[in-house]
C-alpha cells in the first residue's frame, strides 16, 4: 500500500433520508400492497445491511399498473400542454429541494460515491425534468408540420447504475410528450424511484400518469409481454429499456410483431484514444473519469484505452500513479472516489473478467489499498499488454477495469476503435483540432467526447450505434422516442 504522510480524515455525509421500513407498489397515485404477496429486502452494498423492504411485483400487479396508466392516458394526453409543463417544472423544483437527501439515498442503495450522486446524478435528474417541462408546449415546433402525438402507455425498464437519473431520462420526455408510464426500477436499486413516487404524489401529478413497479426480471418480462398496439385495457404502446445488450435483444424479440415502439440503450465497450500530441495530464484525468466514474458501472465507460505506441510506457506510468491516489471506500464519505460494487452478482462478474484477463496473458495493475471487510468491493484495475482478441478487450465488464492497447497511426486507431459490435461512446485526446474533428467523424459511436469524457446534459442526445441500441435520450432528438408523427393511423 502506498502510505501517504497525510491521510484523509473521514468526512461522512451526515444527512439521512426519511425512509419507510417498507414500500408497496406505486399504482394509480397510491402505494399499494402487491397482489403477488411477495417482497424483498434491499440492501446497502457497502455494508450488506438491509435498508428497507420492497414489493416484488408479479404479472397481475404489472397488469394493474398498466391498466392505471391506460386509464390516465386520455385525460393526461389532452391536458393543455402548458399545464403539463407546469407540473413537470414543479417536479423538477421539488427534486431540487430534496436533492441532498436523494443523493444520500442513491449512494446508500447503489454504492456510488456521494460526491458523484450529489454533483452528477441529482443535478442531471433535476435538469432532465426542467428541460423537458419546457418541451410540453413546444412539440409542434420540434416536429414542424408533422403533427406530433403521444404514443400512449410507455413501459420503461431501467438499470441500477444511475437509478434516479435513468428514471428521469425515461419519465421526463415521456410525460412531456403526453404519455403515461409504468416504470420498473432495477431490482438492487429501487429506493430513489419510490421516493420519486412520493414526490410525484406531493406535486399533484394526476393519478396513474406514472406508476412504479419494483421487482426483478420477471416484473420486467411482465411489462414487455403486454407490448402491442391493440390499445386494449392492458396494452403497452412503447417499451424503453436501458441495460445489457443481451437483455435488450431478448426484449426486441418479445416486442417483434406487436407494433409497440421500442428504444434500447444498451451496453458498450467504448474506446478512449490518446494521441502522443495530447495534453497528457489532462488525458490521464479524462481516462480516470472515463473508467472509474461510478465504479465503471457506466454503459459508455472508456473501457478500451488506446494509447499511441510512442507514449505508451510514459502514459501508463502516469495513469497508474494517478490510480494509486484514488480513494476507495465508504460511499457516504465526501472524499471517496470509488465506492462499492452495486451487488454481489456484479462483483462476481467483474472477478471472472479479472481472472480471464490474467489467464489470457494481460498484465494486471491495481490499487493497493485496504478494502472494507463487509460489502462488495473491487480495486480499480489497469490491464496492460492486452490483445484485441482478449475477452477483456471485447466484452463489457461493467466494472472499474480498463484494458490498455496501442496504435501507431490514426487509421489504425479508428480501425481498432470501431472493431466492436458496440457503438455507444468514444473519447479522443489530442491538441490538434483537425485531428479531433476527423476522428469524431470516423468513430462509430453515438457520443464522441473530444478532450473530455463522460459528460451528459439534458439538451444533448445520448444513445448508441450498432448493438449499443437505438433511439436517443435528451434534447429535441430524444423526443422522437415518445411521439408518433403524421395524421395517419
Amino acid at each position, binding site marked *: 500500500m502506498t502510505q501517504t504522510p497525510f491521510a484523509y480524515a473521514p468526512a461522512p455525509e451526515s444527512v439521512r433520508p426519511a425512509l419507510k421500513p417498507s414500500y408497496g407498489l406505486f399504482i394509480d397515485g397510491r402505494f399499494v400492497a402487491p397482489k403477488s404477496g411477495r417482497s424483498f429486502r434491499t440492501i446497502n452494498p457497502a455494508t450488506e445491511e438491509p435498508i428497507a423492504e420492497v414489493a416484488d411485483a408479479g404479472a397481475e400487479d404489472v397488469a394493474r399498473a398498466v391498466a392505471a396508466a391506460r386509464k390516465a392516458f386520455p385525460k393526461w394526453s389532452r391536458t393543455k400542454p402548458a399545464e403539463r409543463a407546469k407540473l413537470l417544472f414543479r417536479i423538477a423544483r421539488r427534486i431540487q429541494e430534496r436533492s441532498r437527501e436523494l443523493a444520500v439515498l442513491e449512494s446508500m442503495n447503489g454504492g456510488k460515491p456521494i460526491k458523484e450522486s450529489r454533483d452528477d446524478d441529482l443535478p442531471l435528474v433535476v435538469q432532465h425534468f426542467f428541460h423537458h417541462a419546457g418541451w410540453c408546449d413546444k412539440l409542434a415546433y420540434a416536429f414542424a408540420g408533422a403533427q406530433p402525438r403521444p404514443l400512449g402507455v410507455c413501459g420503461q425498464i431501467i438499470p441500477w447504475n444511475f437509478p434516479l437519473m435513468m428514471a428521469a431520462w425515461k419519465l421526463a420526455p415521456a410525460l412531456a410528450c403526453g404519455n403515461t408510464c409504468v416504470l420498473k426500477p432495477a431490482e438492487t436499486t429501487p429506493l430513489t424511484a419510490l421516493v420519486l413516487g412520493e414526490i410525484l404524489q406531493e406535486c399533484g401529478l394526476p393519478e396513474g400518469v406514472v406508476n412504479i413497479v419494483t421487482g426483478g426480471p420477471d416484473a420486467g418480462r411482465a411489462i414487455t409481454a403486454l407490448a402491442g398496439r391493440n390499445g386494449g385495457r392492458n396494452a403497452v404502446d412503447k417499451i424503453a429499456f436501458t441495460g445489457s445488450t443481451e437483455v435488450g435483444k431478448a426484449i426486441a424479440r418479445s416486442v*417483434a410483431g406487436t407494433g409497440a415502439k421500442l428504444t434500447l440503450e444498451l451496453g458498450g465497450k467504448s474506446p478512449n484514444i490518446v494521441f502522443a500530441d495530447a495534453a497528457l495530464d489532462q488525458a490521464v484525468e479524462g481516462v480516470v473519469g472515463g473508467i472509474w466514474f461510478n465504479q465503471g458501472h457506466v454503459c459508455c465507460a472508456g473501457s478500451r484505452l488506446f494509447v499511441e505506441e510512442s507514449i505508451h510506457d510514459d502514459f501508463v506510468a502516469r495513469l497508474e500513479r494517478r490510480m494509486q491516489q484514488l480513494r476507495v471506500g465508504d460511499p457516504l464519505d465526501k472524499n471517496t472516489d470509488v465506492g462499492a460494487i452495486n451487488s454481489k452478482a456484479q462483483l462476481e462478474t467483474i472477478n471472472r473478467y479479472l481472472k480471464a484477463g490474467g489467464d489470457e496473458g494481460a498484465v494486471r495493475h491495481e490499487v493497493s489499498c485496504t478494502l472494507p471487510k463487509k460489502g462488495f468491493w473491487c480495486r480499480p484495475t489497469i490491464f496492460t499488454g492486452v490483445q484485441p482478441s482478449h475477452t477483456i478487450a471485447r466484452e463489457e465488464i461493467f466494472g472499474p477495469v480498463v484494458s490498455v492497447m496501442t496504435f501507431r497511426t490514426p487509421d489504425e486507431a479508428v480501425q481498432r476503435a470501431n472493431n466492436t459490435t458496440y457503438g455507444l461512446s468514444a473519447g479522443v485526446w489530442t491538441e490538434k483540432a483537425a485531428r479531433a474533428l476527423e476522428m469524431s467523424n470516423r468513430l462509430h459511436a453515438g457520443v464522441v467526447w473530444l478532450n473530455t469524457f463522460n459528460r451528459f446534459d439534458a*439538451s444533448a*442526445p445520448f*444513445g448508441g450505434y450498432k448493438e449499443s441500441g437505438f433511439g436517443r435520450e435528451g434534447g429535441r432528438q430524444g423526443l422522437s422516442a415518445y411521439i408518433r408523427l403524421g395524421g395517419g393511423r
Partner: protein
Amino acid sequence: MSAARVEVAKTLKLYVNGAFPRSESGRTVPVLDARKRLVAHASHASRKDLRDAVESSNAAQPKWAAATAYNRGQVIYRLAEMLEARRAEFISLISALEGRSKAEATKEVDRAIDRCVCYAGWTDKIASVLGGKQPVAGPYFVFSMPEPTGTVAVMVPDAQPLLALVSLLLPVIASGNAAIVVAPLANAPLAIAFAEAVATSDVPGGVVNILTGITSELAPWIASHRDIAAVCGARLSSGDAKSLELGAAENLKRVCLFHDAPAFEDDAFWHAPFAIAPFVEIKTVWHPSAL
C-alpha cells in the same frame, strides 16, 4: 404486305453493384399484366443474390456517405432527370401491370418524380434540420449531427409500385446510406425500369441494388444478416413484419416499417425529414470550449 413487327422483349435481370446480373439461382418467373398476358420473365432473387447485394452495398456505402451532401443532391437530381426521361415508359408499365387508367398512372409517376426532386434538395439540409448545436449547461461546444446507418434493406409493397419504391428508397439514400431494394416479382418490369434509370444516372454502383423476389422468402435472411444495418418498409403483411422484426434482434438492426404512416400520396409526411430520421444515427460530439 409484311407481317407485324416482332417486338424486342426485355430480359429482366437484377441490379447489383451497378450491373444487371441474372439471379445466381437461375430462377425466373413469368410476369403477367392485368389482363393476364405475359409481359416478361422476372429474375427470382435468392439468398445468394442478397448476399452479393449486401457485399456490393457495404463496399459502396462509405464512399457515398463521404461524398459531400451537395454532390449527393446533384446525383439524386440526376436520377430525377432520368426518371423524367422514362416517364412514358413508367406510365404505360403501371397501367398495363396494374390495370389502372392512364390518368391514374400518370399521377403516380409524376408524384414519384417530384418526390425524387424533393429529396435531391434534402441532402444538404438534413443535418441542419435533424442536428444542431446543443445548449448544454457547461463550458462545452456540443453539436449533434445525423450520420447514415449503413446498408438498409428497402421492402417495397405491391401496391403503387413506383411511388412506394421512391418514397421508401429516397429518404434512405439521401442521407448517405446504401440500399438493397426488394421489389415484388409482379412489379419486376417496373422495378427494373427504375434500376435502368438509376444505372444511367450518376448514382455510384452498389449504392442502390434492386432485387426482384418474394418478400416472405427473403425477409428472414435480410433480418438476420449481420451486415445489414436497418430495414425500411411499409404496408407489409403482419407475418413479414414480424419475421423482419424478430430476426433484426440478432444484431439490433433498426427496423422502421412505417406502421403509423399515412398513404404515399401524403406529401406532408413523405417529404418531411422525419421519413429520413429512422435511417440516420444521431452522433453528439463534445469539446471543451473554455480553458
